[in-house]
């Protein structure tokens, strides 16, 4: 079976052949690996790659795998190259800045329409007794600022967009 994944903007092609139950040969980047796998609790895998042991937590939602290898995290996308590049291009043009944590907005430094430099702080989010400046990942114009001072925002909700 052949599968292709995207990781860190690069495509990886896997060839996988099951030998016996939970044991398979995998070819990746012209290298061959003897892999055996044990299933622990839901989403928990014990992976043995050429004798080396890896404790894996893996979750699949819609388009990508979230994989923990011991304490390291990887996001492995399953979508095709074209889609992927498409999204990449989109990224260049317009960026919606989402929050990676819930919290309360305590300060907003800019207004819609303001010029902004990469790394410049747009607003301050308070969570767990700490104030955190949310900065812009790119230079441009502040197109929209959604929350107001005092608002409570959920993880993943858009704070502002820069174009």
């Amino acid at each position, binding site marked *: *079976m052949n*599968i292709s*994944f995207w*990781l860190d903007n690069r495509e*990886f092609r*896997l060839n*996988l052949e*099951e030998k016996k*139950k939970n044991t*398979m040969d*995998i070819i*990746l980047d012209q290298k061959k*690996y003897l*892999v055996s*796998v044990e*299933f622990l*609790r*839901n*989403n*928990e*895998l014990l*992976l043995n*790659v050429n004798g*080396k042991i*890896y*404790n*894996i*937590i*893996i979750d*699949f*939602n819609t388009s990508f*795998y979230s*994989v*923990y*290898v*011991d*304490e*390291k995290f*990887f996001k*492995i996308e*399953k979508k095709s190259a074209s889609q992927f590049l498409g999204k990449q291009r989109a990224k260049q043009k317009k960026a919606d800045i989402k929050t*990676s*944590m*819930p*919290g309360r907005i305590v300060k907003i430094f800019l207004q819609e329409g303001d010029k902004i430099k990469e790394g410049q702080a747009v607003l301050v989010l308070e*969570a*767990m*007794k*700490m104030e*955190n400046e949310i900065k812009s990942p790119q230079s441009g114009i502040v197109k929209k600022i959604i929350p107001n001072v005092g608002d409570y925002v959920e*993880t993943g909700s858009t704070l502002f967009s820069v174009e």
Partner: protein
Amino acid sequence: MAKMFRKILIANRGEIAVRVIRACKEMGITPVAVFSEADRKALHVKLAEEAYYLGPSTPSQSYLNIDKIIEIAKEAKAKAIHPGYGFLAENYNFVKRCEEEGIVFIGPSSEPMEIMGIKTYSRQRMVKAGVPVIPGTLKPVKDEKDLQQKAQEVGYPLLLKASAGGGGKGMRLVESKGKLLSSYRMAQSEAQSSFDDPSIYIEKYIEEPHHIEIQILADQCGNIIYLGERECSIQRRYQKVLEETPSPFLDEKTRREMGEIAVRAAAAVNYRNAGTVEFIVDKDGQFYFLEMNTRLQVEHPITEMVTGIDLVKCQIEIAAGYPLKFSQEDIKPNGYSVECRIYAEDPDDNFMPSPGKIVYLRSPGGGLGIRDDSGIYEGYEVPLEYDPLLSKLITWGMSRSEAINRMLRALSEYQIHGIKTTVPFFKSILLHPRFYKGVYNTHFIADMQKEDVDDTEAKIAALIAAGVKSYLDSKMVVTPRSKKKESNWKLQGRLQNISNRL
């Protein structure tokens, strides 16, 4: 004769509440927990024998709600209250209230707490007691004229500090005369907003400072002893991140001098309870009194690891009126100990707080010299409302390197998924040549540039894992009737996804 309490109310949450609850159980005392709305499922509630609802999640309406806490203590017939650290631990109005209500506050009496709470007071007291303080003003500066004159006397660089202050709030470093006035005004307004007291005093700025503190114990019979130091120079934004004892920077002579001075400082204010005297030590080993924490410290375990003394039990015995069980001669610290503070913060995203549900947890218990003082469990949801300390991982070793290598091993076994934590961050500190050699000061983390680790191996494992999963999932669809164990797992997987989607 002193009598031990039957019940103690713990007016706190998180790992420190758990810590105190365990000490109570080991002493045969019934621990009474209190909890806010956000903490209904908290570990300190699970481990308590009794637990009572305080109120809404906002601290002011729960863990800072003096009336409610006193009321519960009376209802539950708890004759003593342990404040932990933070919240009401250094609030002398709370202590006064306990004194009025006839409830034993497990800590000092209100007076020494008040003195140590106001920096300019304590500086004056310490100078009187012959305790070296950082050169500067003993009183708040009167006005801008007074400021400029005093600044001239102290010399640059200097620090402006809030008299009521602490934790870096209302503090400004002034390099030169030009910046003095503007910095002063900013410091004032910050002090005003943080402590509603704008008064500011001046301290000489110490170059390449070490932050080293001395643990002391003082009973009600006038016995005071010191239990060695803790090196707390590994800090980020004035927040301690990692502590160790003994300090690789101190020599025996300085260590003993600091201990004796710390005892003098405590005696000067008739202190009782466990307490910590914090010092700034300059690059030449000169040390200056910084402040005294009139409570249990977050990092107290490393002192316990090298002395074998349970500081919380000592606090309780002292409060009950028992004399200390040991004299200064009995205190012979043994070995080395390190503590890593595991925070719910994302080290890869500028230490952003990361509250949320812990979906998977493996703690690194097991083996000699490992201790994990934790406030979490698998399935627990880390609330947004309180500080992000999840757990303190502590190791002990016969040598400093053994303690460090043990910590690295333990961290490698510590798996917390669902939220981001500082676990991975500590590896880069512990393996840093300057830390390993033990030559570092409070600038260490700021100076430390993050070298990126080679994760090719892990990357390959991740890709293989994704391949295996997608292969087996695809297989599951075509052949539903595979072997029991296997399909069982897969269904589990499916069910999991469904329930996640709720």
